[in-house]
């Protein structure tokens, strides 16, 4: 029975979280003393290249677009309406470029760098962690310490060190960016080949950190399962070690699969600073530039996308878990 209620309940909670996130996204930038439009227009006029007529024009178009002349609650609904129709507004810094366009250019880079890194790192990390748990010994100790260190290390620190050692000191890889100067992004062999040489380093730095985190998790899960009653029972029954290893592996995988789903949820926001370090033209770099230019619409759009991605991933995991594992549904009705 309870599946329907479980799903409904989760849906409501995640809707509440979504509304809270969207409200924060709307409200916080409007708490800036004055309002963002004043800030940006005064910045424009400081440049001196804009006449006061143009300035007035820009100002009015912003006020109209954000509905700043309306009361706050009405602004909120204007904002909601725009967000739900997929219109993220107009950039301040790159006026009149639309935010959709800017984000649309940055997002593929972020996904291209993160998705393969997450998948490869996940597979390798789990294999290494499982081997460490099963084999034990010095192998385990060295793998565990290294993985712990790697996963404890802030991911951008590793990026910085790799960039310096492999690109600057040794000269194996190009130093920054995503493709050579003078090329424009296109689907041609020459461009992709060029982009690939810039791709390795950020990819490598993300994969290494991800392997570390996954290996630590898998190792401790496998060791935990090794001590389970069913393992002792299976051994007492004389079941072969290979078979038992299979049991253990399957049980230890469950939390790891959750980890994968959640990692994919943090795809957009996960490597903001790695992109910054490598000046990779993804969402992180876009966010950095937007913050430097007080480009509120772009910042808001990025934070919104990050939030929605994370909420969706969490929601998906909880629903799938609820379907797969009845114990979780039972526990949910007891606690919250």
């Amino acid at each position, binding site marked *: 029975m309870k599946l329907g209620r479980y799903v409904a309940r989760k849906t409501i*909670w*995640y809707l*509440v*979280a979504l509304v*809270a*996130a969207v409200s*924060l*996204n709307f409200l*916080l*930038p409007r*708490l*800036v*003393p004055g309002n963002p439009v004043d800030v940006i227009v005064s910045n424009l006029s400081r440049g001196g290249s804009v006449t006061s007529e143009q300035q007035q024009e820009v100002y009015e178009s912003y006020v109209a677009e954000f509905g700043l002349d309306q009361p706050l609650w009405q602004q909120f609904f204007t904002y909601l309406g725009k967000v739900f129709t997929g219109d993220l507004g107009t950039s301040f810094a790159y006026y009149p470029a639309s935010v959709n366009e800017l984000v649309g250019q940055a997002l593929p880079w972020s996904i291209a760098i993160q998705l393969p890194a997450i998948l490869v790192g996940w597979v390798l990390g789990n294999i290494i962690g499982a081997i*460490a*748990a099963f084999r*034990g*010994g*010095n192998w*385990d100790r060295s793998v565990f310490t290294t993985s*712990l*260190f790697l996963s*404890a*290390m*802030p991911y*951008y*620190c590793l990026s*910085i*060190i790799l*960039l*310096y050692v492999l690109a*600057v*000191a040794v000269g194996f890889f190009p130093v920054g960016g995503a493709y050579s100067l003078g090329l424009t992004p296109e689907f041609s062999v020459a461009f992709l080949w060029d982009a690939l040489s810039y791709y390795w380093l950020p990819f490598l730095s993300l994969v290494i950190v991800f392997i570390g985190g996954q290996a630590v998790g898998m190792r*401790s899960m496998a*060791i*935990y399962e*090794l*001590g389970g009653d069913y*393992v*002792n029972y299976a*051994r007492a029954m004389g079941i072969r070690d290979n078979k038992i290893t299979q049991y253990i592996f399957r049980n230890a995988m469950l939390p790891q699969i959750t980890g994968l789903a959640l990692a994919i949820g*943090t795809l957009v*926001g996960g490597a*903001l*600073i790695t992109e*910054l*370090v490598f000046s990779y033209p993804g969402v992180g770099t876009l*966010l950095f530039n937007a*913050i*430097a230019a007080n480009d*509120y619409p772009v*910042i*808001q759009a990025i*934070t919104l996308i*990050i*939030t929605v991605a*994370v*909420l969706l991933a*969490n929601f998906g995991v909880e629903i799938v878990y609820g379907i797969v594992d009845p114990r979780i549904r039972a526990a949910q009705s007891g*606690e*919250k």
Partner: protein
Amino acid sequence: MSTVNSSMAEETAAPRANTLRSFNFSARFWVSLVIVACVILMSLAGFIYPTGPAEKVGSLYDPPGNGLLMGTDNFGHDVIAVLMAGTRTSLIIGLVAGIVATTIGVGVGLLAGYVGGWFEELLMGVTNVVLAIPAIVVLILISMSLPSSTIWSLAIVIGITSWPWTARAVRAQASSVATREHIDVARLSGVRLPGILVKDVLPYILSYAVMAFVLQVAGAILAEAALSMLGLGPSGVNSLGTQLHWALAFQAVASGAWWAFLPPTLVLTLVSFGFLLLQASLDEVFNPRLRRGKRKQMKQAAARREEEARLLAEQAADPAARADPGAPADPAASGTHQHPERSEAGDPV
């Protein structure tokens, strides 16, 4: 040979003779303590270091040498002086944010877990909502909206965005403590709610709160660094994050000025690793189930086990197997090499 079975059996081996020993601070604990202490000492050394962090002692990225151990940064400031001041700022932010987050988290968790009912539902609902929204997003939005950010405002903002997981974990423990008998006794003797919470529930979760605090401090230091690198750091102050921010902004990595970016990178790594290790080893101290035997004891136990296994094998085997005297000894020797670690790994976690 089945190895895991025997590792289970050996759990009972080597009882601890002395009570002080039973507190079992592992080597890991001391290593982490030394790391954290070094970082703190370094941050304090800034007070006696002759050069100030804002003193111009050279030009853009002077290499080490010339009396400057680590050269200069992009402003011509002494990298070591900036690093010391920055570490201090980062530690202060971490500490304040950790206190704020742990206080809110433990408070909400205690109340929710102890009081229960609709109140618990409400508090945990709020907690779960806050937990679902990525903290970095809220951090970016709030720090963007602050007119000017000081280290205090930044610390408090980080603190109020990072409490939910502490609250959730504390609630689970508090609601189990709330059903125990000594709570009934306290309630019957007329102790008020705050009294019960502080005197009768809190002590049971204190060890957990301490570990959560350690993690919160490390998390806050990293959050500050991330924010600063995105350009939302405290204005006019040095921190590990702002130091990296300027190094990246002025192309320190690309121009090979390793002295400008490597020190803050390494200190951040040390801080993060040291605090995590400290938390893990505190966990071992507080939670006896996680305790692992000392390596020496494990080795002795393993050797004893091997010896027994060898004797058994000798008794069971036919004389032909014993004809070669090297045969029974060899597997035992290679066994002792492998098995002590095996048993350590096989410990229930």
